[in-house]
């Protein structure tokens, strides 16, 4: 089941926040390196232990470094994306001259755009992906997408940023030479009325800033347009696959179905759904006779906890099976157990790869379902 991923040049790991996306991206990276590939994992903000396992805690941002201590015939490289730097360098690259770039950097709305606005991280991680792809240095690039509310935000967000540069908006704001006002340039009466309405409630200073912002953006639009086509081409390529990493809760799982549909609409394909922590950690009730009364009390509480947990997993598994039946056959689904081992260093990641491989080979046996 996993082997299909080896045909890909790019794997995009998507999913909503808190589902173990970064860990699974790295695990897939280690696995592919074991299969002999030269792999790059691009990530945003890994947890300390994971950063340590990937050797990222000491390396520079945006500079890939090789992960040491792996038993693999291939190579694993990892890099942490610095959003602000990539955004700024992207603007510099696309701007016709230094002045145009500086003007945009000085705009107060741009400052909000590049740092806090949702969508900018998605945009820059795609830019980082494209740069890595163009370098030709890797057999496989795995992109760990930024944390988001929904998996699909990843695809939508860059579109919104690209839209900023598009002529349809910018042309209405472009001032002519001298002090030809904004509104005089407008041809469309509807837009004119709408803009006066906006000015009435926001004030002319806001309109001025906005106009300045879009005007600066417009200078970049040709380059940016080219870039957005390249990004789209890469994401919809046959050799790019999406992996959805998801949690086990019903509310998270329904996302898988929507994501598959949304990806298809966008011309991309969902290769694999990884359901994380979908089976409880195993535990057998202790022999009470061998325990002191105090320890018995604790052991009973653990039994109760495991019972509640197992009831929960049963309900969820039923839901999961229904969902799997509805997913199209081109998408595989793997349910990973809750891992209670300490994941430390490269060895920790290798352990996760083993679990992934075992789960995958079990799923390949036709008789076995995805029971707990």
């Amino acid at each position: 089941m996993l082997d299909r991923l080896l045909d890909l040049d790019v794997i995009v790991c998507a999913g909503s926040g808190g589902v173990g996306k970064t860990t699974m991206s790295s695990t897939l990276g280690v696995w592919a390196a074991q299969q002999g590939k030269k792999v790059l994992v691009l990530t945003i903000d890994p947890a300390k232990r994971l950063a340590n396992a990937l050797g990222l805690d000491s390396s520079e941002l945006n500079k890939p470094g090789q992960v040491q201590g792996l038993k693999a015939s291939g190579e694993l490289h990892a890099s942490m994306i610095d959003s602000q730097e990539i955004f700024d360098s992207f603007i510099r690259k696309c701007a016709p001259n230094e002045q145009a770039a500086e003007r945009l950097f000085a705009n107060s709305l741009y400052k909000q755009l590049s740092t806090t606005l949702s969508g900018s991280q998605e945009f820059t991680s795609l830019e980082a992906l494209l740069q890595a792809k163009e370098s030709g240095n890797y057999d496989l690039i795995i992109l760990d997408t930024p944390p988001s509310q929904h998996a699909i935000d990843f695809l939508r967000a860059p579109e919104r940023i690209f839209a900023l540069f598009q002529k349809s908006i910018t042309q209405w704001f472009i001032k002519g030479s001298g002090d030809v006002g904004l509104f005089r340039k407008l041809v469309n009466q509807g837009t004119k009325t709408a803009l006066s309405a906006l000015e009435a409630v926001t004030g002319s200073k806001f309109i001025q800033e906005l106009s300045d912002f879009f005007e600066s953006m417009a200078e970049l639009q040709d380059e940016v347009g080219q870039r957005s086509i390249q990004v789209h081409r890469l994401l919809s390529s046959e050799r790019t696959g999406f992996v959805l990493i998801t949690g086990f809760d019903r509310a998270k799982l329904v996302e898988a179905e929507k994501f598959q549909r949304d990806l298809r609409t966008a011309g991309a394909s969902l290769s694999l759904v990884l359901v994380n922590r979908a089976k409880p950690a195993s535990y057998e009730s202790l022999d009470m006779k061998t325990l002191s009364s105090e320890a018995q009390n604790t052991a009973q509480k653990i039994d109760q906890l495991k019972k509640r947990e197992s009831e929960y997993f049963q309900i969820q598994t039923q839901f999961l099976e229904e969902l799997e039946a509805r997913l199209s056959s081109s998408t595989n689904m793997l349910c990973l157990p809750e891992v209670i081992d300490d994941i430390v260093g490269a060895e920790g990641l290798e352990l996760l790869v083993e679990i992934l491989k075992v789960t995958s080979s079990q799923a390949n046996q036709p008789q076995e379902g995805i029971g707990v």
Partner: protein
Amino acid sequence: MSEITANQKLHLVTGKGGVGKSTVAAGLALNLSQKGEKTLLVELGERSFYSSAWGQEFGFEPTSVEPNLWVARWQAEDCLKEYLGHLLKVSKIAELFFENRVMKALVNSAPALKELAIAGKLTSRPRKVGPPLGFEHIVLDAYSTGHFRALLNAPIGMAEAVGFGPMGEQSRGITDTLKRRDITKIYVVTLPEELPVKETLELDDYLTNQYGQETCVIMNKSLHGDFQLDEVKILSEEVVKTEAPGSSRKYLEYLETRLTDERDFRNQLPEGVHTLEHQYKPTSKDLYLKVAESLSEVVDA
């Protein structure tokens, strides 16, 4: 200040993705409504999260789901449309504004405009701007920490960028309302794990030291409600001497680690962290009722 504005409370719930923000927000809103106070639970964005629990879709207009509890789903565009309609007094112009293709693209892409629209709608009653929302409590299932800061920063940035004029005025009013502790309360949901705690600490530092607000930290999926670290240690020690299966020993080790981590994380967080037990229930009204019960301590504090 009128009676009405003094009474309305805003509850903003944030936290790292996946910590259970929406569940805590729903539990909080249920708890408040059970006290007999009119409560509006608000979710944001294109898709409804609460539809699966209540079995119905939610939109901009509040929908009654329980006694004293309404749910609404706000999208920035709707908030802006309502606001413009209210200010311009002529809904025709507002309609025209939003039917315009250029304006649609603009609203979708202009930096901070969406965040500003949401924050504006949220604070409309205390600020007496826009159509008033007739609820005693508004509970907002807000964005995750990073985007939540963008929500708080949008009016500040806008006021800096546009010092004069209506936009600047409005922006300052929004920030003032969000900073008032007698009106706005901010809840940060976290888990006993590294990244959620890290984000909570960063946000708490920002809120208390720069923004001038308090935080109410809620640690979800706590094991300390069920277990004491010491009793698990005692059990482990006894089990080592027996023939207990390896998986059980490993599980006990894991439990010990989890409890130790939880204690350490609690020590890192500011004092007065509230804990919420792991419920082991799928997303449902049943889960929210359970959480509502557990949150009594938080609400009464």
